[in-house]
């Protein structure tokens, strides 16, 4: 009896120990295998490959017309809702701009907890006090803030594990990007390309918050590429980071798109190619060492940030399997690169463009001198928001197509003198809309091997929404007009739409909860979630 009682006590102690020391929710291995865990949405783009593709297939071309609203989360924020949520085992984690975080029941939208971050009275981000999302690793969530903090929150309670000031918001720096967790580090970059910052990408120890490395997106004196900046212009040359990168574990490279050089629209004070502005950089995530780069727009005069999400695809290209990176750039050109080496493979304009005579054999644009901004204004296609912008593209392995949201329009680019003062905008002109030419938006499907357009879904207004494609052979997106819609991923045919009454500034996601596929998108100031009706 005594023995039995002792065994019982031991058993209870063991049960208690197991119950109170659950292993971490999201290990680095789980992040690596996110593609085979499609019930969850574990990183900004869903997986490290950033295809924004889900293997979920409950919602299909046959039943998409029965999609109906399941729940709505109202954000109590009038900022643009640019965030992508994460979903982990039935819990949705979401940032509410500027910098609140909520944990929601992914089945009902009910709140578990809310973290409130108080900003100083005066911050001055260029384009809204926005936030694009979180990273998760272990039991911690990571968020960058408008006032320059990187914060680690406990995912179960929303309390602060650590909080580090990583940039000086007073000098025009801010954090709007969703961080990316790789191994034991959290990688984040700084926004502020319109403020004469010197951009960088940082890695922080996820447990302690200590900085492990920093990669300046503008090389300092003595570093390769420093001579692509005239005089002291490198000190305030911009090259910000504001959209999340990707990661290839086999190559051990993390890829990040870099923003425009500063000042915009006037390159006179920064003669040279201005590396690594408007480039993709491939970094060793352990050390931050640069392994290769590819610059899309050398000496940019139009504000064509290359912050697009790097889409990593393994597929046949010209007869052999290659590790590709697909990229629809703000400058209006589609590119395929070899992501092991950075080799340029193919490039083609996906919208009407007038600033080049095409790309040379290395992918460098043959810039038309007459396209440069001028005091009186120079009309150039695409306009300042670009042929596409930061909104997530998608690649669907079932169709083999690359999808992106595009704008067809022009701007008049006016050049002016730029005056630098720390913390103020550092602009060399102004782009203006062209009266009577509003342009239009579209979702386009490209052949990744050639850049040829396979189909388009055209909208009256331009679009700021990203894309999601699924194994149900669907393509989801939102619009400025307030619609959320599902297209046939093969041909762009509209299968279902609803009006959410607010513009979509974010990209949809999909996940499973209770065994049922859900699709969510932020529009206006709320997040909407849909399921197939009973």
């Amino acid at each position, binding site marked *: 009896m005594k023995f039995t009682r002792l065994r019982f006590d031991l058993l209870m102690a063991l049960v208690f120990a*197991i*119950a*109170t020391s*659950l292993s971490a929710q999201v290990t680095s291995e789980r992040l690596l295998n996110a593609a085979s865990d499609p019930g969850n949405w574990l990183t900004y783009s869903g997986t490290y490959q950033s295809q924004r593709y889900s293997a979920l297939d409950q919602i299909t071309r046959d039943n998409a017309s029965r999609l109906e609203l399941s729940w709505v989360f109202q954000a109590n924020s009038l900022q643009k809702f640019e965030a992508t949520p994460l979903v982990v085992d*039935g*819990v949705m984690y979401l940032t509410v701009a500027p910098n609140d975080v909520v*944990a929601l*029941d992914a*089945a*009902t939208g*009910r*709140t*578990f*907890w809310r973290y*409130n*971050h*108080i900003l*100083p*009275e*005066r911050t001055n981000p260029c384009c809204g006090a926005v936030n694009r999302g979180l990273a998760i690793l272990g039991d*911690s969530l990571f968020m960058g803030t408008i*006032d320059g*903090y990187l914060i*680690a929150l*406990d995912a*179960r*309670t929303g*309390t*602060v*594990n*650590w909080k580090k*000031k990583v940039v000086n918001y007073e000098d025009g720096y801010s954090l709007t990007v969703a961080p990316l967790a790789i191994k034991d580090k959290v990688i984040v970059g700084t926004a502020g390309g319109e403020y004469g910052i010197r951009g960088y990408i940082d890695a922080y120890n996820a447990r302690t918050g200590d900085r492990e490395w920093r990669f300046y997106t503008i090389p300092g004196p003595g570093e390769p590429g420093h001579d692509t900046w005239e005089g002291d212009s490198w000190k305030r040359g911009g090259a910000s980071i504001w959209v999340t990168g990707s990661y290839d574990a086999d190559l051990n490279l993390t890829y990040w798109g870099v923003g425009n050089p500063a000042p915009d629209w006037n390159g006179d004070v920064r003669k040279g190619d201005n590396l690594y502005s408007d480039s993709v950089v491939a970094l060793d995530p352990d050390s931050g060492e640069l392994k290769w780069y590819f610059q899309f727009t050398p000496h940019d005069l139009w504000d064509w940030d290359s912050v697009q999400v790097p889409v990593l695809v393994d597929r046949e290209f010209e007869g052999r399997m290659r590790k590709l990176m697909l990229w629809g750039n703000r400058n209006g050109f589609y590119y395929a690169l070899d992501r092991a080496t950075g080799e340029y493979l193919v490039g083609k304009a996906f919208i009407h463009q007038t600033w080049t005579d095409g790309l040379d054999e290395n992918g460098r644009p043959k810039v038309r001198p007459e396209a440069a901004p001028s005091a009186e204004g120079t009309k150039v296609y695409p306009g300042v928001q670009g042929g596409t912008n930061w909104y997530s593209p998608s690649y669907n392995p079932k169709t083999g197509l690359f999808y992106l949201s595009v704008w067809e329009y022009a701007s008049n680019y006016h050049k002016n003198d730029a005056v630098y003062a720390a913390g103020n905008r550092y602009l060399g002109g102004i782009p203006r809309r062209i009266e009577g030419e509003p342009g239009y938006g579209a979702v386009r499907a490209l052949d990744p091997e050639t850049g040829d357009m396979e189909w388009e879904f055209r909208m009256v207004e331009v679009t700021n929404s990203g894309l999601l494609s699924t194994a149900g052979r669907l393509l989801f997106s939102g619009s400025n007009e307030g619609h959320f819609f599902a297209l046939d991923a093969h041909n762009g045919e509209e299968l279902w739409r609803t009006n959410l009454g607010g513009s979509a500034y974010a990209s949809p996601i999909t996940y499973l909860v209770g065994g049922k596929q859900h699709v969510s998108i932020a529009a206006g100031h709320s997040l909407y979630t849909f399921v197939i009706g009973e």
Partner: protein
Amino acid sequence: MKTLRIAIVLALAACTLLGQHEEVKNLHASPEDVVAGGRIFFSHCAVCHGLLGVGDRAPSLTSGQFRYGGSDGALHQTISRGVPGTEMPGIYFDGVEVWQLVAYVKSLSMSPEANTPTGDAVAGQKIYSVRGCSGCHRVSGEGGRSGPDLTNIGGSRSPGHLRTAILSPNEKVLPQHWTVRVVTKDGTEITGRRLNEDTFTVQVLGSGERLLSLPKSELASYEIVRESAMPSYQGMIRGDDLEDLMSYLVSLRQRRAAQ
């Protein structure tokens, strides 16, 4: 009167637009203003800060130290706007009342603070650790989650409130610390911290520190436990040990972000 109104408007504008509240001087600090401010305090503030401002659910206001600034302008701003992210709401008067409240709050700084612990915070941290407090409570990301996070407990609760919480935890259990005990229709028993609830569902931090959302339609029984899950330490932590532990808890204050 018109001049006075203009002066107030200008002072507020200075607070709001320029953030230069350090330089704003309270023009309503006479003994009569203090009395008038006290009347408003009893109605609007004492419920959390205690009748004499000695603190309770909200911090003591008697130490002369104010987390969001002790200048006239800073106090005016804290009182009129509240503190976002905390339980402190703003108070909305458009006349002299907020300035009279500022005068009253400043007058409290002369009062001796009740319940101020006299122990050693470093020794208290050891007691916190030895007594297993971290099994249920977290401080700066370390510890359990079934009890309230204590990272900023010294900044958000008065010493008196903390002393009561240790010795008589059932005396005041705030709704956010209630527990739910349910049995699902298939017989599973679940107990956890009640995080949120609506007509149809309840959200809890269950055993194993999992976030659970439970549809009420699937529950056989449902009970809210308004008692604290924490045992009383009356008689178990005494004398110097209690003072040391209290000193440690009072020392737990989150540094405010630089403005």
